[in-house]
């Protein structure tokens, strides 16, 4: 029995088929499992092990290497406040302290209503809008604490559901078009190209 829902499972199999080796789909699959469950659940781990030809321990261990993959349930919104150098120089610590109070949860934990999980992150590459805040990996660009509270209120009221999908949903643009080029076709193209090159070189020689 598949733990992944049929549509998710279908996308999972598509992902696997994109790569020369199944294991390469590991990170996209981890994200996909989070899209379904909000975090990486044990049954999803077992299924990804099967899809990638690895073991559950290997999937879990690999997932645990990456910050974006959560092995425990998280809130609907994961709020990341960067405190790295550029943000630090521009009030990140104050923003983080504010977030703790405002969301009512400590760093690394989830608010009582299950809505927010707060994280202190490393640089999010948006340093010209310091201090930088991401919610479910969307830049919300709230450089003041007031703006931060505003966004949080909007999230609470469901006004930002489109801009900020629930945790786990990362890329909503589906791949369209494109198949892997077959080896045979490649060989044919290469030999055509080589022939063309030979022709050119021959032409060069003829010219005095």
């Amino acid at each position, binding site marked *: 029995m598949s733990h992944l829902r049929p549509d998710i499972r279908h996308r999972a199999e598509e992902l696997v088929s994109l790569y*020369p*080796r199944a294991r390469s789909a590991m*990170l996209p699959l981890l994200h996909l499992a989070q899209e379904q469950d909000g975090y990486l659940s044990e049954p999803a781990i077992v299924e990804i092990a099967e899809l990638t030809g690895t073991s559950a321990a290997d999937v879990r261990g690999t997932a645990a290497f990456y910050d974006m993959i959560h092995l425990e349930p998280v809130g609907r919104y994961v709020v990341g406040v960067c405190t790295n150098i*550029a943000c630090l120089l521009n009030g990140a610590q104050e923003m983080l302290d504010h977030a703790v109070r405002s969301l009512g949860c400590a760093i690394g934990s989830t608010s009582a209503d299950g809505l927010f999980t707060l994280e202190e992150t490393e640089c999010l590459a948006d340093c*010209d809008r310091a201090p930088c805040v991401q919610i479910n990996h969307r830049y919300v660009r709230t450089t003041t604490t007031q703006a931060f509270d505003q966004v949080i209120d909007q999230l609470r009221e469901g006004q930002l559901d489109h801009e900020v999908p629930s945790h786990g949903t990362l890329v909503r643009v589906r791949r369209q078009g494109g198949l892997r080029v077959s080896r045979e076709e490649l060989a044919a193209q290469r030999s055509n190209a080589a022939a063309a090159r030979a022709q050119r070189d021959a032409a060069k020689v003829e010219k005095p």
Partner: protein
Amino acid sequence: MAALTAPRIVSSRRDYDDSFTLSRFLETGGFSALKKALGMFPEEVAAEVDAASLLGRGGAGFPAGRKWSMLRKSPLSYLVVNGDESEPATFKDHYLVEREPHQLVEGVIIAAYALQVSQVFIFLRGEFALGLERVQQAVNDAYAQGALGQRIFGHDFSLDIVVHCGAGAYICGEETALIEALEGKRGFPRIKPPFFPAVTGLYGEPTVVNNVETMSNLPWIVLNGGAAFAALGEGRSTGTRLFALAGRVNNPGVFEIEMVKNTFRDLIFDPALGGGIPGAKALKAIIPGGVSAPWFGPELLDTPLGQDEVGALGSMLGSGSVVVLDEDSCVVRAVWRITKFFSRESCGQCTPCREGSGWIERVMYRLEHGGGRLEDIDLLLDLCDNIAPGISWPPQQTTICVLGPSIPSSVVSAIKMFREEFVTHVVNGGCPHD
């Protein structure tokens, strides 16, 4: 005065709000470079890139043309685009993937054609949710336009691009760690030898890894010729480059400026660029090239923004990031935060980096938050020496990759430049800025 006459090569569409759409891209010359390239022989395209003397924009600054020429001949080879951009205070690729995704895709197709590679992976850091969507859309558009897939624009060249998302780990920017992540593993950098992915890379096959910005330069180079590119800048540092300016400046952001012709002072103080320091405070230090780089003091402000010019002074232009610390910034706190970053981001494979980063971070924490001892300062220097013997730049290393020897950069710089502030922290029992 800053020299701002050079053309914008990778940010030519920056004034359009819809620069990321296909229609704007096509309207502004999209795919014309690709079409031109497809009319050339692959090696001719590569020759233009070689002539441009395009230095890689990912950090190491290796000439793209040279890297391409090292690609081992094999029926199967790969091009991997490095969009992991996680070096603190670096955000120029962020700009390119969100605002110029089609340009990136066009550049990638050109590179793949020049390299005669049929499979490309664009690796973007997972935190770029919007960038991932935009690049995926640009790839979809390219397929729809016939610029990707079977027989591109009717030529004997077919290509597939897969957009691959990272999952949050700085080390995956290191090219061999990136390859491991692309193979579905932990981002453990590979031990050398083999030294170059161009010989043994993805799945053990020859692989070129290039940065997003490196790729984004290609359409312009093909259209205008390598010589035109090489005419910009000076010495080995040709063309323009994106600089990500952050920290204590009035106008932080990404600026495309000609290399060497401008200095750090231009970048930070020119009104058209950084616009100076808030409150006209004094500049205390700059971190050129990302937090892996050794720091510069104000006396080096007039150093030209060129790879060799910065390198000659014992630091690096690196990822094109410049962080400004003003007179109010606490260097001990800054260093502590940087070491905390390395401690969190060390992949954990090799002992000196794994344990050294954690140890140094804990000592720095004590210095900043109270509990520091005078002997800690020399202890820090010695621990740094044990990670990067001799503490010089470019570093010697006891580790597998250069994340390890990047840890000492800020620690040693700050102690050398501001030893008395460390002492004050000890004497004060914590940060005097609190």
